[in-house]
């Protein structure tokens, strides 16, 4: 280790080695390619902005234009995004838990990693998180339900809900004291709300209005559809992220 260091200090700055070339060359190439994209100086195209400003409320019922795009005009991308999140959570948990074919000598020794999670579980933490959890949960639902009016929405609310659930699971003295923090329940909520999102996406097709449209344009106001999608996304994200975090916390015990 030390020898290497002295080697590096001895190396003259102008000395060209294959290592340096392989470090600098891609950087140079990439920067040369990216410069024209960074240097665009045309005026910002604003025809879509004007269109949205005049008709987004009428068409989607959301005052928050980002929400109207996120769950209205471009809801299909949001579906893709929730699928990515779902896949990542499932995959991460599978990889953490996978029993490994160990036919190698480098087996994992538990001694290397002192279990610090117990240190986390102080009386103070128990009380604070236990009391704070429900409040944060309420706030998460607020962010989720009012996403079409104010900043926030299903995803952001979902992450807040997830942190509330993690608080609750840290605060509960014995594991699984709350129904909401059981992995099975979280998994079920996640799958069900993903299903609900898909059903909402397909409902428009069954009533003949097309994919990702409000199924009953005359019966539902437009913002009801966005609120429903917000709830589905929020619950799904909340359940998924909290499931991942709880699994990670418990993994080291």
């Amino acid at each position, binding site marked *: 280790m030390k020898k290497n260091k002295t080697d590096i200090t001895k190396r003259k700055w102008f000395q060209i080695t294959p290592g340096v070339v*392989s*470090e600098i060359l*891609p*950087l140079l190439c*990439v*920067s040369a390619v*990216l*410069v024209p994209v*960074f*240097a665009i100086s045309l005026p*910002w195209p*604003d025809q*879509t*902005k004007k269109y*949205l*400003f005049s008709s*987004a*409320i009428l068409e989607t019922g959301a*005052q*928050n*234009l*980002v929400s*109207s*795009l*996120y769950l209205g005009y*471009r809801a299909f*991308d*949001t579906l*893709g*995004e929730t699928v*990515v*999140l779902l*896949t*990542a959570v499932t*995959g*991460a948990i599978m*990889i*953490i838990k*996978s029993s*490994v074919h160990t*036919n*190698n*000598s*480098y087996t*994992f020794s538990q001694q*290397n990693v002192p279990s610090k999670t117990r240190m986390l579980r102080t009386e103070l933490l128990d009380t604070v998180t236990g009391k704070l959890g429900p409040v944060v949960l309420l706030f998460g639902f607020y962010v989720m339900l009012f996403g079409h*009016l*104010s*900043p926030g929405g299903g*995803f952001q609310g979902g992450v807040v809900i997830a942190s509330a659930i993690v608080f609750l699971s840290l605060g509960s003295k014995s594991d699984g004291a709350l129904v909401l923090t059981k992995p099975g329940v979280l998994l079920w909520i996640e799958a069900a709300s993903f299903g609900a999102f898909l059903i909402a996406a397909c409902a428009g097709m069954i009533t003949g209005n097309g994919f990702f449209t409000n199924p009953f344009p005359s019966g539902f106001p437009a913002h009801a559809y966005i609120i429903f999608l917000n709830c589905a996304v929020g619950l799904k994200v909340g359940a998924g992220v909290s499931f*991942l975090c709880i699994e990670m916390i418990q993994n080291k015990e």
Partner: protein
Amino acid sequence: MIERCLIFLLFLTGFHAIIVRKNVIKKVFGLGIINSAVVILFILEGSRSGNSAPIIQPGVQDVVDPIPQALMLTAVVIGVCLTALALTLVYRLYTHSLSLHIDEIRRKIHDTTH
């Protein structure tokens, strides 16, 4: 203009880390950094198109273009998913080779499979 140069610098910092750093967690840091560089670029350039947040309220006239924001919302989430997945893979790699050095991981895995 200075802002764009800074974003470019941020991007190069991250990309350089992915290529040069040997520690796998640092490589994942680099991935997060280049992702945030592109997000900042979108939002910064998008903000030039108006002077208030894209929420329609009485009195608001000139909002910024909401499309870059909606796109970046998706990109941020996807970036974090990839980071989380990469880190679980790092964890698995560590349990096998007890190292975070990419060359050492490669060498140990090569040794055990041959």
